[in-house]
């Protein structure tokens, strides 16, 4: 089989899974609920490092009222 034909088959395979199967799975109740909650909270679960988060983590102000940071 020629390489371009094999490449076409790979592309079709990925397209079938990503454009067909995954959108179907995404509609399952528990998946839809998880995604809805993440979107509502502005969470980026795919962030590899803290600089990729939608909001940079900062020490919450309330924490110092509950925890002694430097005794």
């Amino acid at each position: 089989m020629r390489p371009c034909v094999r490449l076409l088959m790979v592309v079709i395979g990925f397209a079938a899974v990503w454009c067909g199967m995954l959108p179907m799975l995404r509609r399952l109740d528990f998946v839809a609920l998880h995604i809805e909650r993440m979107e509502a909270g502005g969470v980026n679960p795919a962030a590899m490092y803290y600089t990729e988060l939608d909001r940079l983590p900062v020490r919450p102000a309330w924490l110092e009222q509950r925890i002694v940071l430097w005794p």
Partner: protein
Amino acid sequence: MNATAIPAQRLRLHEDVVATLIGLSIVLLALAVTSLARPADEPASRARWPKGWPTPLAATIDKPQTWDSSPLEAIRDKQGRNIALPIVLGMGWVLLVAVGGAVLGGQSAAQLLPGSAAVAGLACGAYLLAAQKLVHFYNLEYPLWALLLGIVIGNVVGVAPWLRPALMGEFFIKTGLVIFGAEVLFSRLLELGLPGVLTSWVVTPIVLVVTYWCGVHVLKIPSKSLCMVISADMSVCGVSAAIATGAACRAKKEELSLAIGLSLFFTVIMMVAMPPVIDWLGLDPIVGGAWLGGTIDATGAVVAAGESLGKEAGEVAATVKMIQNSMIGVIAFAVAVYWAGWVDREAGPRQGSLLAEAGRRFPRFIAGFLLASLVCSWLFSLSPVNALWIDGTTTGFTSRLRGWLFCAGFVCMGLQTNFRELTPVLASGRPLVLYVGGQLLNLVLTLAMASVTFGWLFRKAVEP
């Protein structure tokens, strides 16, 4: 006149030096451009600029955004703007770095141009796969898809001769790592005071060292670098730690791929399973958040799991994870010194004192990574204005560029991966046992430390 043709001498620098030069130049350029665009309006206000100053360079790079059923949705950002051009320019940055690397490394830039364009295109494809909503919100990060895409194409279609010169996977990773240094800010290490220091600085190195030692001496895994990469990604912070330590101990690409695969698989499980377990145990939100932050590998997954426990737990989890993130520099440096001074020295002929050999074998790009990290940490700590300058530079530009470079690096690694080399180790199941055993130790020690520090020892007696 008899003119004699003098052959043009090409500059031929070592790959590590080239990666360091290009990486540091990009960081300097980004800092300079962001500084010139300093906002006139409240430049020291974190409330006004929560992610730092906006940098003009952000318009030159972006990646495909989340999409549901059509990949065409990926070229629209959250505000609905068309970002096709910044995505194409992102691929252009990959091409530019490849050409720069070729020129300084003594290769022909023209020869690798078509291949590099294909690698950049495949990196965009990997980002597109990672941006599908189900994949994105379950933390299956782009390195997995970049590797998979490379492996599938390499094995099903094959690697064409014109593509081979462009497979500069290690170079992309090294350059990305030097740029990544700008994001590794030591000043963040003290963000949660002594309880944070005890949870991160004590538990994380103990888990790392014990897991590595068990892998080498108890499970007797033949490759020390595989043990180190698995131990680091499990104990520190997943893929980014695997990349940094893998580069520091010169792990094989197959080992890095395996460690990343393990980390992402267990991250998804822990992200879903830990919040109900914390609820069931009835843990205090601060202790639960610290436990999540100290144990789940990936940063995004920590925030996602924390969010499902509530606002307080989520904020503590994200901050603890950020402290662990900042440990990458220290860990990568320690691993590079240990490898240069002990592991490599034992394997090769000894040519001098321990210090001299460690200096000779120390990977130069790790020095570049540390230099970027130290300079940015120092600038960050000088004033609130500087902190916003550094944050704007990293969140707006350098983090995006190193993402593209890592993605291109993983595509190249996938195209060159030969899993047959790892078959005997994989068949034994020992890497899996190492990861699971190390993670169990991590879970127990982090819970104990978080309970002692955040739950008891440093707890204020009277709570509001």
